[in-house]
């Protein structure tokens, strides 16, 4: 059953940050609660104080600021799914939102919560990793932007301090002719934790070659990971089968899969291979279409 805790209901973001500071380290922010509430029931987390940040106006926006797409950490996965801006400049994230849990969870769960929970299988992370996203960590009176890749430390562990709250996520609007996609394998079609997830971003140059690329994996290591070795292989190259094969092999090498009730380590490695290869092959098909169009 739900243990007892104190629930604080700030009306503004500064108030929320004051509360987090005042009760640290015993306070935790509560957003959609789709991870936190089951964790409380299961005894996995035992905060004395919950600071409800769900619905705070200051965390509820999606917009363009200069060269960035910026969104408040409180936007729900359903908001991500409906945003035309994200559809145009972060399709990979929208693809993840489309297969995220189920419609009920998507209505409640927030992007900030999914990041802060720091599950190795968090579905928003590989897409935001390939978008080179940054997070804004705010505490009473100060704030800092950190790269998402530097954010995760271990399973359910991040650099976010007790007094800090994830308040925003941003990424640079990708150049034209950028392909970004997300795939995951699950044991049923909805409301299932990823066995493996993969996100890929490829930007083509004038020549049709890949000028920039990013590959990220979920559920294959203690935290979601970027596979820079694979990206090196892709950069400057045309997406030939040979190049795709080499990049895929780096992805598999980067994965340090473990076995659990969902799958063995060997199967995870296999799926990492298949999904990465398929996404890169899709990128290749897409690049041919781009070439023909131009």
């Amino acid at each position, binding site marked *: 059953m739900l243990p007892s805790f104190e629930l604080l209901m700030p009306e503004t973001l500064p108030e929320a940050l004051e509360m987090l500071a005042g009760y640290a380290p015993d306070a935790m922010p509560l957003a959609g609660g789709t991870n936190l509430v089951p964790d409380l029931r299961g005894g996995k987390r035992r905060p004395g104080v919950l600071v409800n940040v769900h619905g705070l106006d200051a965390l509820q926006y999606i917009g363009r600021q200069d060269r960035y797409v910026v969104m408040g950490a409180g936007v729900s996965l359903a908001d991500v799914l409906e945003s035309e801006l994200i559809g145009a400049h972060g399709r990979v994230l929208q693809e993840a939102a489309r297969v995220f849990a189920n419609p009920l969870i998507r209505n409640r769960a927030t992007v900030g919560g999914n990041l802060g929970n720091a599950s190795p299988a968090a579905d928003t992370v590989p897409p935001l990793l390939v978008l080179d996203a940054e997070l804004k960590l705010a505490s009473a009176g100060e704030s800092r932007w950190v790269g998402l890749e530097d954010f995760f430390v271990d399973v359910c562990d991040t650099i976010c301090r007790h007094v800090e709250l994830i308040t925003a996520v941003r990424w640079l609007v990708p150049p034209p002719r950028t392909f970004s996609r997300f*795939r995951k*394998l699950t044991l049923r*079609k*909805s*409301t299932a934790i990823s066995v493996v997830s993969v996100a890929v971003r490829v930007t083509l140059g004038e020549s049709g070659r890949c000028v920039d690329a990013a590959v990220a994996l979920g559920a294959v290591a203690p935290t979601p990971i970027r596979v820079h070795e694979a990206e090196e292989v892709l950069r400057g190259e045309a997406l030939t089968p040979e190049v795709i094969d080499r990049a895929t092999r780096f992805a598999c090498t980067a994965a340090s899969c473990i076995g659990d*009730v969902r799958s063995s380590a060997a199967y995870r490695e296999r799926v990492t291979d*298949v999904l990465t290869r398929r996404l890169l092959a899709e990128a290749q098909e897409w690049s041919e279409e781009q070439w023909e169009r131009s």
Partner: protein
Amino acid sequence: MTETVGRPWVRADARAKVTGQAKFPGDFGMADMVHAKILFADRPHARVVSIDTSEAAQVEGVVAIFTAQDVPVNEYGLQTADQPVLCGPGSGKPGADVVRFVGDQVALVVADTRAAAEQARGLMEITYEDLPVVSDPFEALKPGAPQIHPGREASELHPELSTEGNFICHHQIRKGDMEAGWAQADVVVEGQYHTPGQEHAYLQPEAGLAYIDDEGRVAVVVAGQWAWEDQRQIAHALDIPVEEIRVIYPAIGGAFGGREDMSVQIVLALAAYRLQRPVKITWTREESIRGHCKRHPMWFRCKWGATREGELVAAEVQVVADGGAYCYTTNKVLGNTTITCTGPYAFPNAKVDVDGVYTNNPPSGAMRGFGAPQGIFAAEMQMNKLAEALGMDPVALRMRNLLQDEMPTTTGTPLAGGVHLQEVTERCALAAGWERAEEGWRKPAAKGVALAGRPKEAMRTGMGMAVGFKNVGFSFGYQENCWLRIELRGEDDIERAIVTIGTADVGQGAHTVLQQMAAEALQVSMERVSLEASDTGTSPGSSGSASASRTTFMAGNAIREAAALALDGWREGERPAVVEHTYLAPETTPLDPDTGEGFPNFAYGYVAQVVEVVVDVETGELRVRRVVCADDVGKAINPEQVEGQIEGGVVQAMGWVTCENFIAQAGRVLTPHLSTYLIPTIADVPERMETIIVEKPDPRGPWGARGMGEMPFLPLAPALLAAVHDATGVWIDEFPLTPERVLRSLRDGGSLLECDWE
């Protein structure tokens, strides 16, 4: 006049359930009630050396702590009382100090609040002496294996129950002359199969409220399937007369067989009786998954022979079933497996051996199909492999061998109530696209499929079929019966008909169907019929269990007979006209212990299914694209509910075959959450489900109706596996078909089942 039977009446409970007004056991409360929590053993095999409650008792708000020594008769069980109510020393029942699976109950902590009960439970000091664990039934049968229930006595009532080693029971069939059979066989197919356990995953975890009612009885509000039997077992354990126990079923959130056996009933009654106060309990989902039985995991070794022309001549089948820590209904479940594991076919020669085995796994018990889905799986896998070996169409091979009226089964007697296996097979095959040409049956060509993000060359489609049959009602020599009472009120016309019956509506819509049949039998409108059901306080007789697809058949016949008697009284001027009546089903006989000969059942249902799948051969993922199901229900009393039952049965079976993966390791449950034990969601259901309701009346069924609740479950597994074979060329002989298992089987060219059969 009214014609209520055969029409899709809206369920009587629909509005209340959709709006949240219906009260389930967990929704009941009373002013001065206290809360209980059960301390589960959480270890698979151990002796409870001592129980220290002193620290727990100090927790503020704790009212009482009950342990084994507080249970007057510390035993219960549907078939044989082999399970302690509370495990521990001091109850005087030999062996009751041993826990045999993780869900065994050790203590009941009662407190003013749930929080206090939970806190006190955490402070209980139990000293265990761990015993060696056996979690593999094949290991359990080896000499020197840990003994789960040493010193059992033979049962007069159930002679199939064994007293030897870890054997729970044995059934066998010896028909014809096996050597002569093999001599006739041009083609022999041998196969080994494994079917996994399954969690019922009903919507509502176990819960209940017990209190002393205004007549001084111990009333237990709970969800079950057979109130009268719950009452009997509670009274036995508390050692008080049956009349002093009252069992009430409010709305029940699903059952599927999982509520046939006791969960919270006895301990709740014990606490309320001792404290003379209302006591409430609600299990968490995790407690539910650990605490109640599962479908029997089974292992099969089959050898079937046929002539070149496709005539079945011999079948040899050996079955080992993991019964888990207690008997529950294992002997009865395996009776069904015995008669279904050679399929719905006329074998002149058959040899079948079926053993149930005790282990330290969670007990296996009743679940939709009750031993038939496993038997049908092995049989239909054999049949589909035989069709391949013979180069015959699977429909053609079946049409040649399916049982028909008057043809003896492996038990030596024909199936009762009209045999319509050919009808369902034919209707299903034609609807799925088979052609009946002059030269025989022809399967439709597979169609390719394109799925976004998946390479076309990795997508393989296939189609498979299977047929099933199952008995209706408890029988094998047991005299099936159903009690009810009808009271007709009014002056000139019947203004109100009150039907009192014990039958549970476990969510399948039984009460609506009973109301329809009563209205029809009495020739009054639906509004004039009211049902008083599921309360032993008002129903002194047993109406039987809501299981074995029996409710419509048994209660319907009881209604028909009682209505005729009540109308006689009414016409003679009785006001009110009151009849109490017990319907007795046709007699059956047990199977002969040596030959398996007998007349085990009085009614059957028949079903055929075709399944289409698409398999991603690079990841092993599969998707069920289409299921066609033809089900002979005799008469659809409520066609909409029949369709609902069929679709529900198909999806539940699909879960068993595809994503449901109950994992226990050395007796410990690794999937106690619905986030780790994955049942299908709405996104997983087959893309197309086509239901064909076949109505070939059973002459002894009410309005011709047969039982149908379990039948749609039966052929799905083998039909789906045949579709996977059609798609990939590989026979997978075990499931669930997790993507990983599919991929591994594709790599290995099949399943590598290794069992120690000797």
